[in-house]
């Protein structure tokens, strides 16, 4: 299941972070997400990997840690999406699909005229949409 | 003979002011002042005609036939009057007037520099109008 999703701004500041666990490892998840930014930097800035094929928004598994797997996604507008799951084997396609939906939700959220770019996403409808996406993902993969 | 279907075209704003006048080679060219006066006179007559009507809900004169010319008048629901002086028996002038009305909405009302109710000075309007009249003449020649 997905335990945490996050949106990270281009200054590497968290814009949205929601954990979906009962256990109070919210803090730990913050750490996990924050550390994953290093991998994103590594993947994106690594000189040898600027062939267009590698410019796709989906960054794949960033790193496994403890019993989490951290997946990443980087939009054209330098917004980073991060998804933390405890599923053992996640299919690439599922992850991609998840992020595609998530991205759509994000885009609508920032299209709210009252959302100020670079600020945290406080939209309720966004979080609602996200949690449905998360649920569908969990069900999708476990099924 | 068919070459000059329309002698002249007037546009009058809702308060009777002439906001557009164009002459297409009628014999007795009227100068600006005359045309202004004519316009407001026509405006009044038009109003009177409504009063004269035996039945309520009359929209006023829309065709005035003289021995050597017809005067077609079209009044938009917003009170702007378009009327054309043309040769006797000239056909579907009212369609033409409608078209002109559309041109008016497109190129006059959508021109940010045009102030409502003011005389029309829009080259684009002139341009398109000329084309329409031209087309109309061609049509007349065609028949």
């Amino acid at each position, binding site marked *: 299941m997905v335990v945490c999703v996050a949106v990270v701004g281009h200054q590497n500041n968290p814009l949205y972070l929601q954990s979906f666990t009962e256990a109070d490892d919210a803090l730990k998840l913050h750490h996990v997400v924050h550390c994953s930014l290093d991998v994103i930097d590594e993947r994106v800035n690594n000189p040898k990997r600027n062939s267009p094929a590698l410019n796709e928004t989906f960054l794949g598994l960033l790193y496994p840690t403890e019993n989490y797997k951290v997946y990443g996604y980087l939009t054209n507008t330098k917004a980073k999406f991060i998804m933390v799951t405890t599923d053992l084997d996640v299919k690439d396609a599922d992850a991609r699909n998840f992020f595609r939906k998530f991205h759509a939700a994000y885009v*609508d*959220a920032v*299209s*709210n*005229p*009252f959302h100020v770019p670079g600020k945290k996403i*406080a*939209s*309720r*409808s966004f979080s609602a949409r996200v949690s449905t996406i998360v649920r569908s993902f969990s069900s999708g993969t476990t099924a | 003979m068919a070459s000059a279907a329309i002698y002249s075209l007037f546009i009058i704003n809702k*308060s*009777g002011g002439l906001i557009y006048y164009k002459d297409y080679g009628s014999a007795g060219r009227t100068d600006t002042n005359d045309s202004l*006066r004519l316009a*407001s*006179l026509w*405006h*009044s007559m038009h*109003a*009177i005609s*409504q*009063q004269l009507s035996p039945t309520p*809900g009359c*929209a006023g004169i*829309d065709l005035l036939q003289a021995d050597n010319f017809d005067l077609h008048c079209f009044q*938009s*629901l*917003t*009170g*702007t009057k378009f009327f054309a002086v043309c040769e006797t028996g000239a056909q*579907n002038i*009212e*369609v033409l007037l*409608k078209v002109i*009305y*559309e041109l*008016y*909405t*497109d190129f006059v*009302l*959508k021109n940010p520099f045009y102030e*409502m109710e003011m005389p029309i000075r829009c080259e684009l309007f002139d341009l398109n109008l000329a084309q329409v009249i031209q087309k109309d003449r061609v049509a007349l020649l065609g028949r």
Partner: protein
Amino acid sequence: MPPPTAPKSGDALFASVERVNAELFTLTYGAIVRQLLTDLEEVEEVNKQLDQMGYNIGTRLVDEFLAKSNVSRCADFKETADVIAKLGFKMFLGVTATVTNWDAEGTSCSFVLEDNPLVDFVELPDTCQGLQYCNVLSGVIRGALEMVSMKTEVTWVRDMLRGDDAYEMRVKLTKQVPEEYPYKDDD
């Protein structure tokens, strides 16, 4: 005399006009509202301005509407309302409103919109509840009607942004200006 061509159906009408991406419209309007909020600060003032803008737009838009939808003069306010709901909204926003809640003397009714392109993506922040986001629409209606010599008051009754189930604006016909004699300057 009957209009040379019969009035078009709403869909035909919408199909006939030039159309653009709704997002552009929605976002532009949103941006304007936000900018107004920052510049005018007072929410009430913003509402006023939006209405004013709407009015100005309406005064120009109505002619285009009349010209392109060959509607003939409406018998009464009821008919006018229907035309607006079925043709007006459709022609410009691509959605239709329903007219309901007529009062006894038929001078005030409600336009109800389930769908409203103006508010896609919009979510009112807590700080500016009280903002009549869609005021531009009511302004347009008011302006347009005034051009066809109907003085009206338009107010919002329901607003989905406020959690209502639909958008409902109340249109009240205050007075119908008759065609008066224009004997002014010349005599």
